C-alpha cells in the first residue's frame, strides 16, 4: 500500500510546498484508490511541519509545486518519491500518479475555466 500526499490550493497543486495550508492524503495500490482522500487544513504553513507529517504518516509519494532544495533532499533521503514543480489541477495530477504517468516538473494541460485557485 502506498500513500500519496499533495499540498493543494483550491483545485490546484499548491504553488509552494512551504506556503501550503491544505493537504490531501490518499492511499492507493496498483493504480487504484483505497478509500476516499482525506484533506487536512493546517494551522499555519510550514515546510518543516509538512516534512514531519510526511515522515510520521509514512507517505511514499509526494506531488508538490515549488519546494526548496533542502526539504526536497530530506524527503528523498527519507525514500519519498517526490514529484515537484508540478503545475495544474491536483485531481489530474492524482489520476496521473495512479496511472504511473506523472513526471517531475509536469505542466498539466487542463486549462478549464472552472478551476479555482
Amino acid at each position, binding site marked *: 500500500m502506498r500513500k500519496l500526499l499533495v499540498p493543494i*490550493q*483550491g483545485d*490546484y497543486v499548491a*504553488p*509552494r*510546498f*512551504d*506556503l501550503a495550508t491544505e493537504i490531501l492524503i490518499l492511499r492507493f495500490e496498483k493504480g487504484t484508490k483505497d478509500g476516499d482522500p482525506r484533506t487536512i487544513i493546517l494551522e499555519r504553513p510550514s515546510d518543516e511541519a509538512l516534512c514531519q507529517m510526511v515522515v510520521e504518516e509514512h507517505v511514499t509519494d509526494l506531488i508538490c*509545486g*515549488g*519546494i*526548496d*532544495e533542502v526539504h*526536497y533532499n530530506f524527503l528523498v533521503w527519507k525514500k519519498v518519491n517526490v514529484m*515537484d*514543480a508540478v*503545475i*495544474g489541477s491536483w485531481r489530474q495530477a492524482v489520476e496521473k500518479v495512479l496511472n504511473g504517468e506523472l513526471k517531475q*516538473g509536469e*505542466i498539466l494541460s487542463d*486549462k478549464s475555466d472552472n478551476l479555482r*485557485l
Partner: protein
Amino acid sequence: MPSSSAYDISSLLEAFPHSVMILDESFQIVTMNRLMEAMTGYAARTVLGVHGELVVRSNTGNSRGQIYIEVIKTGEAVSVKGDILTYYRRKVPIQLTVSALKSAQGMIRGLMVVIEDISASENIKGAEVHNKQTAELIGYSPKMQKVFDMIPILGQTDASVLITGETGTGKDKVAEILHKKSGRARFPFVKINCGALPLDLLESELFGHTKGAFTGATRNKPGMFKLADKGTLFLTEIGDMPLPLQVKLLSVLDDRQFVPVGGEDKISVDVRIIAATHRSLRDQVRKGQFREDLYYRLHVLHLHIPPLREREGDVQYLLDHFLQKYAKALGKTIVGFAPNALQHVLNYSYPGNVRELSNIVEYAVNMCKKKKVNTEQLPPYLLENERNAPLSGSPEEQSSSDPQEEILPKVTPLDNGGRQNWEDIERQMIIDTLKQTRGNKTKASQVLGWGRMTLWRKMQKYEL
C-alpha cells in the same frame, strides 16, 4: 489580450533588464522574456495560458492572485519584496512589481509582472560592515565613523533629513547613499539645486506646470516632486531657496499634495525629502532669510559632515585613494608622493574639502611624469598659500596664532622616509590615546569616538 499585441511586445520585453511577464485579464501568462524564463526555470512556450502565480511562485502575499486583483481594482502598481521558488528548487530574493496594462481608452487589459533579483543587495546587507567606509564615502577618522554609524539608521526611516557641511565635504554623496540604503532605493533619486535657478523656474522645476501656464509652456511638465514619487527628492543648497517657494515646499511636506504651476487639480505624491546646505540654517532663520517652520520641518534628523581639517588622518587615506584612482584612469604608474610634496599636501587646510583634495591630486597626477609626485607638480596656489597666509574654513582657525599647527592632524606623524600607510597612523593613534588615558580602554574608546569593541578589535589587529 489579443495574441497579436502579445507578439508585438515580446521583442520589447527582451530589452528589459529584469525578468518580465505579461498576464491577461484572467492572470494567465501571455508572454515572458528570457530573463523570466531563466528566473523561473520554465520556458515561455510551456507555460502560456498558465496562471501567473503558479509559475512565479512567490511569498509576496500573492496567494490566490491577491496582488493581481488589487492592481486590477486600483490601477495602481504594487511593489513588494519576498522570494520565489524556482523550478530548480532555489529560493531567490526578489522585488516583485505588478502594474496594470491599460488600453488607449484607459481600460485595464492585463498586467505586467516585473521581477528583480535582489540577492546581491541582500547579501551585501547581511555582510555590511560600517567601520571602514560606506560605498564611495571614505574615511577612518572618529568623526567620519560617527557619520557612517548614522547612515544606516537614517536610511531606514522615512523622516526628512538635513545634511549640513562645508562645500566639498560630500553632502550629495551622503544623500545618495541614504537613498540607496532606504526602502525607496529602487525608486527615483531626484536631485535639484535650489540655489541655481531663479524663483519662477525653480517653482516650475519642482512642482511642474500645465500647458499654457506661461509663455513657452507648450506642454505639461511633471516636475521633480512628481518624478521622485515613491523615491527621494534631494534639495541641495536649500538655504538658497527663495522665501515664496519655501511656503509652497512646507505645504507639500505637510499635505503631501501640490498644485502644478497653472494647474487646478492637486497631485498627491509620496516623496522623502533630503535637504542639504553649506549655510547655517539657524543663522538664516535669525536673519529672516529662511522660514522657521520649514527649518523645523526639515530638521527632523540632522547629519553633519565634518570638514576635512577635522578628520584626523583621513587626508593621507584620501590622497592614496585619489592617487590610485587618477593614476589608473590616466594609465600612469605613480606610486605616491615624494616626502616634500607629501608634507605640503598634508599640511594644507583644504577649505574646499574632499573636492579640493581630489582636484589637487588630479592636477598632480596629470603633471607627474615620474613615479613619485614632487613639489613642482603640485598646484602652485597650494605652495603660494602656504608661504603667505594660511587658508582655513573656520573662524576659529583664522584666529589661531599658528594655523598650521592647528591644521596638522594630531596623529599623523610623518616618518622621515616618506609615506606611511593608514594602518601605521591608526596604530599610532591608538597608542597615543591609550597613553593619554593611562591605558584605560573605555576612556580611550570614548576619546577616539569608537565603541569598546571597535577599539578592542583594532588593538587585536595591531597586536597591541
